[in-house]
C-alpha cells in the first residue's frame, strides 16, 4: 500500500501540467499514474502519418513552459509529444511518474477521508484525486457486421500500427473528421487505391501553416517578452472565432464563405464538390483545417464514398449506399467515446455511487471540475471543459489553478474534506444549458460528439469564450462546498 497526498490519473497535457505545478510549489507527496508505458496522452496515442495540431503551437503549450523552438505555426504531433516528454523530464517529474499502471478502481473511504485505489501494480491511497484521463482517449469503432472476420488488417487511427505495410495496398479510411483530414493526404501518397467513407461532409478551411524562420526562433529565445506577445495575440485571435458559434450572422456567414471558397477553389469536379458540401451549419461539428485534404480527391486512385460503413464482408468494405470495395487495410478514423468516459465506471464516491451512475444522464460538474458526492476529487478535461475555437491547454491551466486554489484553501483551513454541494453543481449545469441554448452545436442540425445522445445536452464544450471560463472558474471558491465537508442532511418530509 502506497499513500500519497495527491494522485493524478493520466500523464497527458493535463496530468503533466498538474504535476509540474505541484512540483514547482514544493509539493512532493504526489504521483502520476499512467496506464501506458510513456507519457504524452493524445500525442503519444496519435502517431498516424500527418498527425498535427489544429491550434497554433505557441498557444498549444504551457504558458509556464514557453518553447521558442516550435518549427511551424501548427507543429507536427511528434514535436508536441517531445515537448511534453521533455517538460516531464526537465521539471523533475520522473520520480513521480508511475508508468504502466492500470487503475482498476477508485473508491472514496468516508471514514478515513481517503481515496483507495486498486491498480495493476498494487494498492494506493490518497487524500486528493485528480482525474486527468483525457477527453479523446477511448477509440470508438463502429459495431458493424463482419468486423471480427475481416480478412485484411483493421485498426483505429489512434492505435497506429506502423508494421502494417501500406505501400501499394488497397486502403479504406472510415470517417472524415479531424484525424481523417490529416491522414488521407499522407495515405494517398502510399496506397495503390484509397477509399474514403464519409458519413457527413465536414467543413474544411485553409491551413495557413508556415515554418518559423531561424531568425524568428532565435528572437523568441532571446526575448521572452516577444514570445509572450505572440501567444497573447494568437489567443485573442482565436477567441474571435467564438462569435461564429453563437449565432452572430455576420461571423457565421464569413466563416461559411471561407469554407465554401476553399472547397470551390480546390475541387473542380462538380459531383465530388457536391459530395463534399456539408449539409448542416458551420461550427455544429468541429471545423477542420487542411489545405491538402480536398486536392486528394482529384487523384485517380482516390475514391470518395459519401456513405457510412455498413459492414465488412470477408475482404470487402460495404457502404450503406451499397457500394463494395475490396480492401487490404481498413483504418478507422471514427473518433472517440466522448460523452461516456470509461474512467467514470471505475470511480465510486459517497454511498457507493459510481461516477458513471452520477453521470447516467450526462456528465455534470460544478466549475466543470468538481462533482457532488465525490469529495476531494477533481476532473480535468471533464464535463464542459473543452473548446472548439481555442486552445485546450488554456482550459487545462485554468482547471489546474482551480485545483491548486482548493489545495491551498484546505491547507489553510485545517484540511477539511471538500465536498461540493449538489445545489452548486445543478446551478452550474443550468448556466451551461443557458449558454448553450443559442449555440450552433445545439441548433446547427448535425450529429456531433459534443452532444450526449442520452439527454441531448451539450456536455463536452464550455459554451462561451475561453476567457470567461477562466474568469468564472479560475479561482477556487469555498462558498460552493459543504461547510463541514459532510454530506447535506436530508430532512424527511
Amino acid at each position, binding site marked *: 500500500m502506497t499513500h500519497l497526498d495527491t494522485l493524478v490519473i493520466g500523464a497527458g497535457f493535463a496530468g503533466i501540467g498538474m504535476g509540474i505545478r505541484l512540483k514547482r510549489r514544493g509539493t512532493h507527496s504526489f504521483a502520476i499514474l499512467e496506464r501506458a508505458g510513456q507519457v504524452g496522452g493524445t500525442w503519444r496515442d496519435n502517431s498516424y502519418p500527418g498527425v498535427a495540431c489544429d491550434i497554433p503551437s505557441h498557444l498549444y503549450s504551457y504558458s509556464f513552459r514557453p518553447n521558442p523552438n516550435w518549427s511551424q505555426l501548427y507543429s507536427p504531433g511528434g514535436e508536441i509529444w517531445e515537448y511534453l516528454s521533455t517538460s516531464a523530464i526537465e521539471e523533475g517529474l520522473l520520480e513521480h511518474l508511475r508508468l504502466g499502471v492500470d487503475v482498476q478502481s477508485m473508491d472514496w473511504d468516508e471514514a478515513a477521508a481517503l481515496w483507495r485505489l486498486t491498480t495493476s501494480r498494487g494498492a494506493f491511497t490518497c487524500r486528493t484525486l485528480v482525474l486527468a484521463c483525457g477527453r479523446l482517449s477511448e477509440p470508438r469503432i463502429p459495431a458493424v457486421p463482419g468486423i471480427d472476420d475481416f480478412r485484411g488488417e483493421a485498426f483505429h487511427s489512434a492505435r497506429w500500427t506502423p508494421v502494417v505495410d501500406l505501400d501499394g495496398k488497397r486502403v479504406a479510411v472510415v470517417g472524415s473528421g479531424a484525424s481523417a483530414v490529416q491522414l488521407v493526404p499522407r495515405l494517398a501518397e502510399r496506397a495503390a487505391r484509397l477509399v474514403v467513407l464519409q458519413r457527413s461532409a465536414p467543413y474544411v478551411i485553409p491551413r495557413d501553416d508556415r515554418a518559423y524562420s531561424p531568425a524568428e526562433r532565435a528572437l523568441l529565445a532571446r526575448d521572452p517578452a516577444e514570445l*509572450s*506577445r505572440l501567444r*497573447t495575440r494568437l489567443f485573442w485571435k482565436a477567441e474571435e472565432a467564438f462569435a461564429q458559434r453563437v449565432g452572430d450572422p455576420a461571423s457565421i456567414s464569413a466563416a461559411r464563405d471561407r469554407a465554401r471558397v476553399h472547397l470551390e477553389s480546390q475541387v473542380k469536379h462538380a459531383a465530388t464538390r457536391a459530395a463534399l458540401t456539408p449539409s448542416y451549419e458551420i461550427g455544429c461539428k468541429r471545423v477542420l483545417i487542411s489545405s491538402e485534404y480536398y486536392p486528394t480527391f482529384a487523384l485517380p486512385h482516390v475514391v470518395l464514398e459519401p456513405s457510412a460503413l455498413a459492414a465488412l464482408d470477408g475482404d470487402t468494405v460495404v457502404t450503406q449506399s451499397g457500394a463494395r470495395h475490396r480492401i487490404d487495410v481498413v483504418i478507422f478514423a471514427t473518433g472517440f467515446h466522448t460523452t461516456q468516459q470509461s474512467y467514470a465506471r471505475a470511480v465510486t464516491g459517497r454511498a457507493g455511487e459510481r461516477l458513471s451512475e452520477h453521470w447516467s444522464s450526462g456528465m455534470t460538474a460544478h466549475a466543470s471540475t468538481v462533482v457532488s458526492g465525490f469529495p476531494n476529487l477533481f476532473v480535468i478535461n471533464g464535463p464542459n471543459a473543452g473548446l472548439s475555437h481555442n486552445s485546450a491547454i488554456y482550459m487545462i491551466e485554468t482547471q489546474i489553478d482551480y485545483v491548486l486554489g482548493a489545495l491551498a484553501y484546505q491547507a489553510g483551513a485545517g484540511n477539511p474534506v471538500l465536498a461540493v454541494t449538489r445545489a452548486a453543481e445543478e446551478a452550474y449545469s443550468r*448556466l451551461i444549458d443557458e449558454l448553450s441554448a*443559442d449555440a450552433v452545436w445545439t441548433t446547427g442540425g448535425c450529429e456531433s460528439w459534443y452532444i450526449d445522445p442520452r439527454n441531448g445536452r451539450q456536455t463536452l464544450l464550455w459554451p462561451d469564450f*475561453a476567457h*470567461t471560463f477562466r474568469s468564472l472558474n479560475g479561482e477556487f471558491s469555498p462558498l460552493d462546498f459543504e461547510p463541514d465537508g459532510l454530506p447535506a442532511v436530508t430532512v424527511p418530509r
Partner: protein
Amino acid sequence: MTEHPWRAPSRRPSVVLVPGFSGRTGEDFPFLLPMLERRHRVVSVDFTTPGVRTLGDLADRIGVAVARCDEPPAVVGYSLGGVAAAAFAAQQPAALSSLAVVAGWMTPAPKLVAFAGLWAELQGERSAVLAAAARQALYSADGWDCARVPRVDDITTRLVALGSTLDVSAMTPGIAAPTLVVGCASDEVATTRQSKLLFGAIADARYAQIDAGHAVVHERPAELLAVLGAFVTEPTRYPAGALIGEDRP
C-alpha cells in the same frame, strides 16, 4: 468573498454603446455589439444625423439613448464617442452607472489635429488615397492583417473634423462614475498619452492597455470585449487608480 457576477443577473446592466468617427455602432463594433448583446441590453448611439455639430450635440445623443434605459446604464464610448461619453458623464453624473472610454482623449493631440487636417485636405480634393492614408494611421503594424478600409463619406468627414476640436479637460473633475480608460499601445491617432491623461484626471478611473492601434475595435475585438465585459459587470473590482495588467493567456 462575493458571488461571481454571472450568477447574479442583476449585475448585467444595460450598455449604451457610442461609436467613433464612423458615427455608427454597426460599423465600429461588428464584433463587440452582437457579443455584448448576448448578456446585456445594448442601446446604440447614432451620430449620423446632420444636426450633430458640437460636443454638446454628441452628449445630447448619448442622453437620448440613456433615457431609453430603465436603470442608469454603463456608457461605453470609443474614440470620438469615448470623449463624448466623458462629456456626458460630467454633465449628468447620476444618469450612468459606469463609464468606459476606449481610445479617447482629454485634449486633441497635435497628431490628431494633423490627422483631421490631412483628412479634410484629401477629402476636399476628393482624393482616392484618403481611405488608404487613414488606414495607415488607424491600424498598428501588428494589426495590419485585419485592417479594413475605413468608410469615407460626409458623416465621417464631419465627425473627424469635430473630433479634432473636442476637449474635455475642463470637464473631467465632474466625472463621478466608476470609469475604465482603455488605452491602445500603438495608438498614433488619439495617442496613448491622451488615454493616460484621462486616467489621471478622472477621480474613480482604472486603466487597461491593449496591444493595438487606434482601430482596436477591429484589431483586438475579443480582448476588448473581455476587458469591457468584466468592467461593466463589476466596475469597482479594481480600485480607483489601478493599472489593470494585461491577461497572460
